[in-house]
């Protein structure tokens, strides 16, 4: 099938049956390539070309979906018929009161790529091999791997009521990690996070600005430092979380609890519910007055920037939490219409998204950022008399209401009398979302900001792992329960 918007829209409108309240198709075409070098040996290359279509049909209060990789006329017709059948079967037995109203956008989006990444496989291997070889600095380095994952996606949507959009994304995700071992201790240190935390839109410029070049030796040296470091002490102390841990803190204890589908109960059998309830928006103190959180799909380099979500809503930057007060949830058009039964004044954000052609949109967090404050990193360190700096997430766990959390980092460093002191290994901390953010006492300025994210935000039934972005400054929290490893 020709992959152009006009042909798709025309074909879809010709095939869609009459009598539906809404019918639309979303076609996703994704090319990806992953290159990996482990212990200076090229791992098997992985390329993929994934393409398919999801049809959405609405008949009264019934919604139905059908996904197919067969984009021929017959394949598309079969998917349309199946989606319509599901919608009609669900009619009168759905969670909706009436047919949900969906926008009919027209427009385009493309990643603001400065230097399209068109490296040959040989060039990709050269880049990774240089960093891999630089890791081999000591016999106690027992494993290491460097990788480069690049993705190009095109997504077309067309609907019976005139929607036509084309969104094109380019993602670049470099990563490296090193494992050091001695005696009965093993320590892992990563560059960019163990699970692809350095992930941005763009091409070669992502690698150039990331600091990936030259990271191999530095990361190996830090792994050895961790191996020699004492265990993290236990106690209540002030902590300074760096952006590569803040991204996880935001994700788990602000992002997920604010997802409207969790609040409406859709996720209770799998990902969970939320301690946040509809009545809290507009009045609830989520954090200290220093806490400002935005949904920002407009930051061009960030992982989940786009022009329209997968229900067709136009994306714009919105405050979710301002001066510590909770303002609005992360909910797309359909969830907002359901929530309107209880709260007609909830604000909207365009964040109903699907992870690919074979899953329907659900409420996600997309780009969720903590806005910068006014403190320099030096000022924050100097302000702590007895505390701990923590970097790079290593462990994450939080309850199904998104309240009781426990997180761990790869790297800890004591702060004494306003000065950075010794490195400690296996730093962990625990707390409760509803009170933790109120202990936010300093927010770093723009110079401390980093743009990160994850390709693996998981939720939904059937399950969906999706790309989300998190930009954050370093932040200080007071009186946190900190502890280390068994030995």
């Amino acid at each position, binding site marked *: *099938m020709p992959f152009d918007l006009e042909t798709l829209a025309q074909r879809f409108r010709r095939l869609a049956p009459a009598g539906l309240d809404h019918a639309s198709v979303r076609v996703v075409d994704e090319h990806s390539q992953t290159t990996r070098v482990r212990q200076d*040996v*090229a791992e*098997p*290359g992985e*390329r*993929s*070309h*994934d*393409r398919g279509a999801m049809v959405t049909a609405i008949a009264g209060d*019934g*919604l139905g*979906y*059908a*996904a197919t*990789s067969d984009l*021929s006329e017959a*394949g598309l017709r079969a998917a349309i018929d199946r*989606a319509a*059948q*599901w919608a009609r*079967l*669900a009619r009168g*037995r*759905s*969670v909706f009161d009436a047919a949900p109203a969906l926008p009919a956008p027209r427009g385009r989006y493309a990643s603001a790529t400065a230097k399209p990444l068109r490296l040959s*496989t*040989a060039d990709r*291997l050269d880049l990774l091999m240089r960093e891999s070889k630089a890791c081999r600095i000591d016999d106690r380095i*027992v*494993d290491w791997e460097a990788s480069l994952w690049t993705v190009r996606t095109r997504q077309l949507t067309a609907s019976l009521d005139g929607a036509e959009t084309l969104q094109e994304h380019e993602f670049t995700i470099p990563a490296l990690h090193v*494992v050091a*071992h001695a005696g*009965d*201790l*093993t320590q892992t240190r990563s560059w960019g996070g163990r699970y692809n935390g350095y992930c941005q839109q763009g091409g070669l410029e992502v690698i150039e600005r990331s600091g990936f070049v030259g990271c191999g030796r530095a990361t190996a040296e830090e792994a050895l430092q961790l191996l020699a470091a004492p265990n993290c002490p236990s106690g209540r102390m002030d902590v300074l979380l760096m952006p590569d841990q803040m991204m996880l803190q935001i994700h788990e204890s602000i992002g997920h609890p604010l997802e409207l589908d969790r609040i409406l*109960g*859709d996720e*209770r*059998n799998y990902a969970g519910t939320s301690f946040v309830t509809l009545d809290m928006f507009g009045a609830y103190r989520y954090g200290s007055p220093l806490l400002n959180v935005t949904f920002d799909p407009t930051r061009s380099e960030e992982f989940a920037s786009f022009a329209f979500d997968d229900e067709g809503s136009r994306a714009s930057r919105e405050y979710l939490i301002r001066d510590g007060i909770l303002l609005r949830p992360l909910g797309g058009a359909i969830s907002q219409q359901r929530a309107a039964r209880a709260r007609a004044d909830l604000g909207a954000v365009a964040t109903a998204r699907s992870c690919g052609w074979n899953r*329907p949109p659900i409420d996600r967090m997309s780009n969720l950022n903590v806005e910068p404050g006014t403190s320099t990193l030096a000022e924050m360190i100097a302000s702590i008399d007895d505390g701990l700096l923590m970097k790079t997430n290593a*462990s994450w*766990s*939080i*309850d*199904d*209401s998104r*309240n009781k959390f*426990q997180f*761990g980092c790869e790297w800890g460093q004591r702060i004494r009398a306003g000065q950075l002191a010794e490195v400690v290994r296996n730093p962990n901390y625990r707390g*409760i979302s509803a009170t933790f953010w109120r202990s936010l006492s300093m927010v770093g300025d723009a110079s401390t900001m980093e743009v990160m994210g994850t390709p693996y935000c*998981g939720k939904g*039934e*059937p*399950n*969906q792992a999706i790309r989300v972005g998190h930009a954050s400054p370093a932040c200080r929290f007071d009186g946190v329960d900190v502890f*280390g*490893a*068994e*030995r």
Partner: protein
Amino acid sequence: MKDLFFSLAGYAFGRLRGAEVLLANFAGEDSDFVRFNHARIRQPMTVRQGYLTLQLIDGRRHDRTTLTLTGVAADDRRAIDAAIEAMRADLRSLPEDPYLLYSTAADASNTERRGMLPSAEEAIDTLAGAGAGLDMVGILASGPVARGFASSLGARHWHAVDSFLLDWSVYAGGDKAVKASHAGQQWDRAEVARRIDATRAQLPLLARPPRSIEPGAYRAYVSPAALDELLWMLNWGGVSAKEQRTQQSPIQDLVDGRAALSEQISLREHLAGGLAPKFDEAGFTRPESIDLIRHGRHAGSLVSPRTAQEYGTASNGATEAESMQSMDLAPGTLARGEVLRALDTGVYVGNFHYLNWSDRSSARVTGLTRFATWWVERGQIVAPLSVMRFDDTLYRMLGAGLEALDSETDWILNNGTYGGRAIETSRVPGALISQLRLTL
């Protein structure tokens, strides 16, 4: 799916030149999903997908590409041509791979397990009918799932299983719910309705005021579903030969003989009891059973062909991830009917949630209680327990602290659907533990 795969694999083999070898793997499904909330329909859908992974090998150089299959022969053949050409061009610049290992056997196998699965009408009628009056939320997944392998050297393997999994929770209010699942190959509407109705029975207990307890060490009974969660943590790198060789296994102390689990713990990968295929991605036939822990001691590892080549050992047909697909923990002696009496006073854990390593080297895992978790006194359920966090090592929980395992096991089909429906299964008993360390 079978005809599509072998037809396209045959076409791809015909495009080879000289001494080139091609391996072809297939993963596909034709699934219906019905997502529901408050016993009403949220997202019903059909997903038809098939992925073909081609691995082109020339000497010790090789490259791999995965394609979505359309089912339209001309389109699929064009995509295969383009993929082979791109890989062939890349092979010239790739270094030789010292760890490449694949099956050269021209063997064959065929497993096709047909079932009786619900139609779209049947699925929605059953869920809307049996769930009436309940705050029921969850998903029904049903349809065939298939895996295939073929090589240009003559191998042909096919594995297709029809199955359904109804995975649901019934809420009594707030975060208090009963969790249940029902999987199989023969859909029986009356049996499904009976199982949904059975979850109603626990609702009066869940409606009691919840009990909150202080952090500390408590006697606990860990249900099969909860123990399954713990064992999947162990399965995250724990039994992988590569992780063990590079000192990264969370049970490294067990592997190296520095620690042991209870003698009651015997764990194996047991394909005969599961849904996973009996061949791996490199075309090797997998053994029926592999002992991994025997009476609390390390007994074996899952070794993929690549790891075998790297470390000069024998492969046992493990997948590239070197994780169990058909986990089997041997039962013990505790009768199910005696569980509450044996627990006496403590915590009955219905489910765990969101587990992760808090200290990987020491096999220390943290997570939360979830769903129907109870406070028990003198062998009687007193009240649902408010959510508690635990943080403890497998060596304590399943070592000195393990008092008994159930004499029965539950068969659990993994409810994961990331990318496609999971084929992993577990057979596990429950466990009575003298001390579970609750921290928050």
